[in-house]
């Protein structure tokens, strides 16, 4: 590593921290919103299901970059809000993550067989009890691997926040490139840092998956 670039190590480090923070925040918010939307997606009322389907299809079809612009400029303009790049990026990432998580939640719940509902209902459990004690603990095991995938893709999408001026890892790197004039090395460092972060998440996911497996 050339000394000019190495001198900026703390900028990269801060960028890593901010990228982790905003993608984590978006995953948590997206997880909560996605859980609600995912449950509405399988609700017994057609109109509610339809609304959930529209939400999911819209926000997973629109490219994240368009959402970033939409939130930063569109929301600010339409609702007379003065959104910071951070708020706009968080909202945009949450919209995409929640649409993806909603499908993960739906698939997880639908993976539990009808017989499980029937066994639990036949014991006199109410729907919330069946869900809490029988369905959810089984669904969450199915949801774990694709959730890790959603987190990784959210983290990568967060690099687009650099476009609206939010200084996360990619933007930090671009700033270092500007002040040092060194391009290839800086971009390589950014790529390696993303790889280390995402590969670590992937490893943690695999470990969690193993812990959550039923005994066989």
């Amino acid at each position, binding site marked *: 590593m050339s000394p000019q670039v190495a001198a900026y190590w703390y900028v990269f480090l801060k960028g890593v921290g901010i990228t982790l923070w905003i993608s984590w925040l978006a995953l948590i918010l997206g997880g909560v919103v996605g859980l609600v939307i995912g449950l509405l997606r399988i609700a017994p009322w057609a109109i509610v299901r339809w609304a959930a389907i529209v939400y999911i299809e819209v926000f997973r079809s629109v490219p994240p970059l368009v959402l970033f612009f939409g939130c930063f400029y569109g929301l600010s303009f339409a609702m007379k809000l003065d959104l910071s790049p951070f708020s706009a990026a968080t909202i945009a990432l949450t919209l995409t993550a929640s649409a993806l998580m909603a499908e993960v939640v739906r698939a997880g719940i639908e993976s539990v067989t009808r017989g499980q509902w029937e*066994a639990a209902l036949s014991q*006199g459990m109410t729907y919330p009890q069946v869900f809490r004690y029988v369905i959810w603990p089984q669904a969450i095991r199915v949801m774990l691997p694709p959730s890790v995938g959603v987190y990784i893709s959210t983290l990568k999408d967060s690099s687009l926040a650099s476009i609206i001026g939010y200084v996360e890892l990619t933007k930090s790197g671009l700033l270092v490139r500007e002040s040092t004039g060194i391009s290839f090395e800086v971009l390589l460092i950014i790529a390696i840092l993303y790889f280390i972060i995402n590969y670590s998440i992937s490893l943690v996911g695999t470990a969690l998956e193993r812990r959550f497996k039923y005994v066989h």
Partner: protein
Amino acid sequence: MSTDPSSPVLRIEGLVKRYGPHLVIDGVDLDVAAGQVVVFVGPSGTGKSTLLRCVNGLEDIQGGRILFEGQPVLSRSSAIHAVRRRIGMIFQGFNLYPHLTALQNVTLAPVKVLGEPAKDVEERARGLFRKVRLEHRAHAFPSQLSGGEQQRVAIARALAMNPHLLMFDEPTSALDPETVGDVLAVMEDLAREGRTMLVVTHEIGFARHVGDRMIFMDGGKIVEDRPPEEMIASPENPRTRQFLGSILHH
């Protein structure tokens, strides 16, 4: 176990069940007294399993009514939960909770639904594991148990709620032949204890030895309802004769 011994535990009047245009149960009347073991036989698709599923409200009904211990069974009312707590159901596919151990399968509902202290329930569960001859398997997960063992855990799970009626929906149909006997032996013990039981099965030997009544169903109707010995020895209806002939000569 019913409060008034003279009134039936279960009364079914003019029951009609349709799936869309398809008539599955076509006007069934049935009274079951406390302590009776009623065995349902007949070709598949004649509404035997559906009948059981109507009794605990897993299916809604299109006509007639069902009274369990004098209370109407309404699948969509909130009172259905209280009815189901007093009816144990055993399924063909066991339907044990795969994320819980055998013991946890048995204790879950009494603790969470009936709100009983976990310690008491666990003690009762241990007794039930002895009853179904699985004391050594209480801490195994369902995936570690054979089909016959899983079905006996499912029976213990149903018994843990202290039900007033037990319903068995083809309990041995999904089992390897060598484990069928263990499950039938447990069911026979329960019958000897005087429990009220509805059993859908193709095990004619079980019906003959354990059943008080044998009901032959065909086309969504009860065709014949008599003591098993009599029905097997001299079926009255030609359809009963044909059906029993086909399964007894195998």
